[in-house]
């Protein structure tokens, strides 16, 4: 292994380690239901709508909790959701603000307008319940996907990183560790589709919460 390979291996490991800090596990009742990503340090988490929608009508929905990288668990409430683009914004209970780590490790968001096909990307999530699993791939395509709602279409990013159920709600990041999208298996029924960060940013802004 030459120095170039060493540098690559080292940088990829650092990237994965730093991403894992911003990844959360969502619990609904007793079960882990999916992944989410810390979008804002003062307690805002983004995930897929379908990840938190399962128990919407039930008592379980009121038991929605978020588990941080360091094992801390807090209740969360659904602050905004949009089924059409499969996104939900969660607010973490304020208790964490009284702790030593009172700011959550938020992600940096990429400027997707400059994203190029072929850029390397890393996906992270909890596929089949495996915590914080990392897979590598590249941006395979950037598409306008049809939606069932007023938007009509929305920007999605296809990657060839291997994904499985449980990756839903986890981030897809570029080589600088900036989030380009949220892995979402259900759009178009095609594995490896992520909702563009552009869409997430405007969803978060429109929620009026953050």
């Amino acid at each position: 292994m030459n120095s170039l390979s060493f540098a690559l291996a080292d940088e990829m490991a650092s990237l994965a380690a730093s991403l894992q800090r911003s990844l959360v596990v969502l619990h609904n009742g007793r079960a882990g239901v999916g992944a989410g990503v810390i979008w804002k340090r003062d307690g805002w988490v983004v995930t897929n709508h379908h990840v938190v929608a399962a128990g919407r009508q039930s008592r379980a929905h009121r038991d929605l909790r978020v588990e941080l990288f360091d094992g801390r668990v807090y209740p969360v409430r659904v602050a905004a959701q949009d089924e059409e683009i499969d996104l939900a914004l969660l607010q973490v209970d304020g208790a964490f603000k009284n702790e030593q780590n009172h700011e959550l490790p938020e992600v940096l968001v990429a400027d997707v307008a400059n994203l190029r096909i072929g850029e390397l990307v890393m996906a992270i999530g909890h596929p089949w319940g495996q915590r914080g699993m990392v897979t590598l791939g590249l941006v395979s395509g950037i598409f306008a996907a049809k939606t069932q709602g007023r938007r009509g279409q929305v920007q999605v990013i296809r990657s060839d990183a291997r994904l499985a159920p449980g990756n839903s709600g986890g981030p897809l990041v570029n080589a600088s560790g900036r989030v380009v999208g949220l892995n979402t298996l259900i759009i178009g029924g095609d594995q490896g589709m992520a909702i563009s960060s552009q869409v997430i940013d405007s969803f978060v802004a429109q929620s009026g919460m953050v």
Partner: protein
Amino acid sequence: MTSEDNNTLVALSAAMADAVEKAGASTVTVDARQRMPASGIAYSAGLVLTADHVVERDEDLSVLLPDGSRVSAVLAGRDPGNDLALLKLSGAGLVAAEAAASPARIGQLALALGRPSPQGIQASLGVVSALGGPLRTGSGGLLEEYLRTDAIPYPGFSGGPLVDAAGRVLGLNTSGLARAVSLTIPVALAWQVAEALAQHGSVRRGYLGIRSQPVSINAAAQSLLGRSQVTGLLLVGVEESSPAEQAGLMVGDILVGLQEAVIDDPDQLLVRLSGSIVGQQAAVEVLRGGQPLKLSVTIGERK
């Protein structure tokens, strides 16, 4: 979260995107079948090489260029045996793809590219996983060599290129040669077929006029040949007035070489008899009575 914008990973990422951009400028959409369009490679300013199985029609063909313009095309020729077809565009203006200078190596990074929709170039990353061949193909042909990769062959990628990390073509991807897997036809072979299709409209297959079967070669004969070659082709029939008879080949000879190539099984002979060798004088090496002998044969054309 840290962000290192000038590290090796960022540089590699940019290099991959550069490779896609370069090769993507020579990757087109081929619209020549009922279901979704497929991909093609700009072989020259006016010629597109694609997979034969995606060209279902002989007429009403069109190509969508990387700049979004649609150009009509005619079929310049087909080689179903290698699943290749060449299209001639009504206008020039393509950016010809650059072939990799050296053959693919197992383990090297490779990108599969396709342009099956107007939404732009698509790519997937892998490595060159295996080299193989010759392979009897589903269409009854014989593929001399192939590559395999673990890059994802997305729908509509057939006819598109496999490129190296610098965007140079390693081969043409097709899912039409073997059931359930995508194979890559190495660029040297693909370009050779493209040239033949451009000149003759088909790939010419050579004709010798022999019937043969593989036999083993004993150690004494191998040492006279000066190489370790354990099998050759025993001639069990020579057709009258055929190129083989005119060259003096006889039943009982063991064919061991053609030009510079070692011939040790029937597939090797078929491979060597295709393309530009047709009509040429070629040196045939045989064992006759255990002794090496070189004869000159004028290769005929199989009709």
